């Protein structure tokens, strides 16, 4: 079984558009939307929900007012500044349990909380695992791991050979969780100074984890000079630029229609994505 993650470093470069098109082009695969704090892939597929699971990724501390004697030890012990007097700010609390440990009156309890949900849905392109992190939750890396586990299980059960992962933007914990142990990363970038700078950082990350990376320059014609700069940068670093996709408003039209662009149109963008997909599959083998 192979796993490939589509990432971008910078947000809004077209990662999900490309992942959705890949999902429509691939065969015998499982789709995993690992952008768990802003999942969008389901907006491009008709999904039929099969299973929903509570995700209890973290805990929170709660004070029993009756037992509390206001000694102030918990406030002093909390490294996250989450305790003021004996009130705990649930937003700042990381659920470490130090306060509960130091409390001489056993007045603090750690409670598991529901931090989100994981879903298994059926789409016409195959099964999709997705998730929704509750607002302002932190265990996003753990939820990504849960989504990936479920995807692997389904792939094994159904004899599917590929897991296609739509990753989150950035380089932090959920991105790392989306990348560990995959066979390949496809990095979608854009020819802007921000795109180039962010590409350098995400490439450093994939190198750090030893993951083979390919680069796709989306909307390459909005600034050809920058496109050349990205290509040169990739060449210098031995990274393959696998595709250059032109800017075309059809991409947004497809999004508005709620369809992967390759299904919505057979124009240049769709042909380019199709060709890129063939090359990605070739590189994966």
């Amino acid at each position, binding site marked *: 079984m192979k796993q490939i993650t589509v990432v971008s470093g910078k947000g809004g470069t077209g990662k999900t558009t490309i992942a959705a098109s890949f999902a429509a082009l691939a065969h015998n695969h499982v789709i995993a939307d690992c952008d768990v704090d802003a999942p969008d892939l389901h907006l491009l597929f008709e999904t039929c929900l099969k299973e929903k699971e509570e995700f209890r990724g973290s805990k929170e501390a709660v004070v029993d007012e009756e037992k509390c004697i206001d000694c102030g030890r918990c406030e002093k012990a909390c490294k996250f500044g989450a305790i003021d007097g004996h009130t705990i700010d649930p937003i700042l609390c990381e659920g470490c349990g*130090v306060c509960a440990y130091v409390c001489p009156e056993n007045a603090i309890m750690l409670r598991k909380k529901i931090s989100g949900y994981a879903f298994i849905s059926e789409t016409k392109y195959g099964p999709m695992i997705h998730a929704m992190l509750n607002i302002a939750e932190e265990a996003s890396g753990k939820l990504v791991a849960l989504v990936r586990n479920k995807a692997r299980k389904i792939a094994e059960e159904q004899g599917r050979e590929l897991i296609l992962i739509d990753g989150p933007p950035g380089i932090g914990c959920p991105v790392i969780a989306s990348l560990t142990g995959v066979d390949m990363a496809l990095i979608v970038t854009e020819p802007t100074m921000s795109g180039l700078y962010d590409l350098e950082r995400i490439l450093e990350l994939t190198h750090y984890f030893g993951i083979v990376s390919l680069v796709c320059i989306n909307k390459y014609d909005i600034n050809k000079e920058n496109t050349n700069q990205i290509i040169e940068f990739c060449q210098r670093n031995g990274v393959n630029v696998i595709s250059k996709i032109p800017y075309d408003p059809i991409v947004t039209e497809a999004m508005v229609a709620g369809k992967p662009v390759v299904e919505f149109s057979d124009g240049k963008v769709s042909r380019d994505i199709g060709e890129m997909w063939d090359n990605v599959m070739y590189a994966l083998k």
Partner: protein
Amino acid sequence: MIISIASGKGGTGKTTIATNMALSLKNVQLLDCDVEEPNAHIFLKPEIKQQISVYTSVPKIDETRCDYCGKCAEFCEFNALVALKNKIMVFLELCHGCGGCPIVCPKNAITEEDKEVGVVKKGVAGDIEFICGELNIGEPMAVPVIRRVKNEIDDDKTVIIDASPGTSCSVVAAVHGTDYCILVTEPTPFGLHDLKLAVEVLKKLGIPFGVIINREGIGDQNVQGYCKEEGVPILLTIPMDRRIAEVYSRGVPFILEMPEWKEKFLELFDKVQSMRS
């Protein structure tokens, strides 16, 4: 006044708004809290005068004292410690630096050690005081770096905070305690879906907010519809304009080449100021 700029979806124009706004105002501090992929420096080209390392404390185990009782591993909520028969394995990237394991260890075998997780850069860009956080590559946790950047807030200035995209802990850390949040979105189904999520975050935090619609003209009218229905103020609309996109791609704040926009950013600031109360 502290204004944060956030968005559910990435790439909607947060940094564009933050930098153009900073350039339009006086007595400003700009804090780049998108520490995973900070971009404001590309546009403002600040002169960096000081670089500060950000550390978290992580456990260090003294093998001569440890008798492998495993109490530390049992305590750690983040599975950063695993007790084997004659070894404690430490997974530093999972450690939140809570300081719990040194307290629970009955043999006093654990001390805390500093680990660098990122840097904060301080400098100036013209009249703007510039501060930016950068997460080290391979480090998963952005929040300590964001908090460190926010330590630099100067209450006598107008503070503009550029947050990371999404709705998770990094975003919360960046917008927490700010007086007003500007949500930047684009008029597409992704933009709307992620805007709704971001709105939930701000409601939960009790921070007043308004919306900027960027690249108006692409996509559909549903963001407008949503804002109207929910009574969310639309502070500014920026049309889809190839020129703006081209100026952006070169890493230039567009008011420098399209000065007619400065007025709009001043109006935006006035609106925000009046709405905060």
